[in-house]
């Protein structure tokens, strides 16, 4: 649904995006992840047709972004980083204007506005002036304008920036509810957002693609060891040594109140570990798997400079 090939964008001497290729399947939510100034906004502006690329190819909903710009613009909903609102309009008036310029036929305009207002939870502020509604509502209105023409693809640039924690949760729920019907790409530098919302991720740094793929594929590809964290009633060096003698365990270490056990990626030692704890009466309270978190993945990819 969204595809780029060797995308490059230069601002004069500065190369903001270098040789970027990735692909997002239909109906999924993908995150565009990277530190500040990584080229996320530039990439999104190219996809939406706001900026042309210096070289390379990009297609959205089957249309070439550069050659069939008008077709692409009909199929795309875009929430830029600064929500593009006209303060002097009412919420309803604003949505009606956006519907008009997004070529929603006149007969369907009213129902399109109703639908967008309903999905984004704006009914209570519908008649109010945009300048008088709160930050959270403005962000929702930004989302409402992005989906008013029921586009196949929605591009969201930092949709939760500047919101309070409760609003962040609401906006994420809202985005998740759009999965399936729409293909969504959102940029963020909040890692938790990716794990909670996205199916896949494109990680870029300094304009270069660092990794791209479905979350589980990426985390398993970058994981070297499997293992568990254990919480025991009794945890001291003696216990650690007991674990180290266990066959198949490559490492045991104390991490805070927990013990971290590691073993080879292709085996599963969990059952044995539990049995061992019960036999030795170590007082097993908790056990969780050592899955690679997105934070670890991100740090490994971005700071380590590892390329897939």
């Amino acid at each position: 649904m969204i595809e780029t090939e060797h995308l490059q964008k230069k601002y004069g001497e500065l190369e903001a995006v270098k040789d970027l290729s990735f692909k997002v399947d239909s109906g999924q939510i993908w995150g565009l992840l990277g530190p500040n100034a990584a080229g996320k906004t530039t990439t999104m502006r190219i996809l939406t047709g706001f900026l042309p690329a210096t070289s390379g190819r990009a297609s959205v909903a089957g249309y070439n972004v550069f050659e069939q710009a008008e077709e692409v613009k009909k199929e795309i909903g875009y929430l830029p980083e600064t929500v593009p609102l006209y303060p002097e309009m009412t919420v309803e008036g604003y949505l009606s204007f956006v519907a008009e310029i997004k070529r929603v036929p006149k007969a369907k305009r009213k129902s399109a506005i109703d639908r967008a207002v309903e999905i984004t939870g704006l009914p209570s502020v519908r008649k109010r002036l945009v300048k008088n509604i709160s930050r959270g509502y403005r962000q929702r209105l930004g989302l409402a304008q992005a989906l008013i023409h029921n586009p196949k693809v929605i591009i969201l640039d930092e949709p939760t920036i500047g919101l309070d924690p409760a609003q962040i949760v609401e906006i994420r729920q809202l985005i998740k509810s759009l999965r399936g019907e729409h293909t969504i790409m959102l940029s963020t530098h909040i890692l938790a957002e990716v794990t909670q919302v996205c199916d896949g991720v494109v990680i870029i740094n300094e304009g270069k693609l660092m990794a791209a793929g479905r979350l589980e594929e990426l985390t398993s590809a970058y994981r070297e060891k499997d293992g568990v964290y254990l919480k025991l009633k009794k945890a001291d060096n003696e216990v650690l040594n007991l674990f180290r003698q266990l066959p198949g365990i490559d490492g045991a270490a104390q991490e805070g109140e927990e013990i971290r056990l590691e073993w080879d990626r292709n085996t599963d030692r969990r059952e044995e570990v539990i049995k061992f704890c019960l036999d030795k009466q170590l007082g097993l309270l908790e056990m969780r798997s050592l899955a690679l978190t997105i934070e670890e993945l991100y740090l490994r990819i971005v700071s380590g400079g590892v390329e897939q």
Partner: protein
Amino acid sequence: MKAIWSIVKKEFLSYFSSPIAYIVIFTFLLLSGFFFYSLVSWFNSVTIQLAQNPYYYQQININQMAFSPFFHNLSIVLLLMLPLLSMRLFSEEKKMGTEELLFTSPLSVTQIITGKYLASLLILLIMLVLSAIPAAFTFIYGNPELVPFLLGYLGLFLLGAAFLGIGIFWSSITENQIVSAVLTFGTLLLFWVLSWVSYSVHGLWQSVLNYLSFFEHFDSLTKGIFDTTDLVYYLSFAFFGLFLTHSVIQSRRWR
């Protein structure tokens, strides 16, 4: 066409949702009313004095004595006021970030520029029509010639259209409305007085400078002389402004 209309509607309404349009129209009408009153009352007193002499009485013409200077005065007021109407057209969109919405919608740059320009022309039209109301009374109580009067207003409209064309160009350059207004004002004034130096140059340059000057073309229209060169001059000025705006917007996005 429908797409252009949505932009016209939005721009027109947003002029009236800020004080700008009200203040510009109000000030323009205040000044035009004052000029009209002072010229017509001056004309009256002159007429009474000249009424004794049948030869001079024949020469009295309200079109030349009151309307022509009236149009000249209004043209200066337009020069001062119209930069304030055009300054926000693109500058504001840029500052608010709403240009990303406009330029990622399935509208062409030409449609967006045309829509915005037409909306500003509409305000100009309102200003001119309202300013003509006092003059309408002279047609009820006297018998001025209609055609030169209408040509004068046509001249004002064309002049204003050219001003707004230059204004929209400067507003596409900067996100600061004041900068946009000042640059527009400077450009307009320069083109206004261009013919002043034509006395010190000769030959081709003299005719080029005279041709480019706003003043020269406006003068003949206020005298009731309609020449298609004047029409072409103003329309090409306006079109040139819009063309430059288009180039600026395209080039910024392609840079």
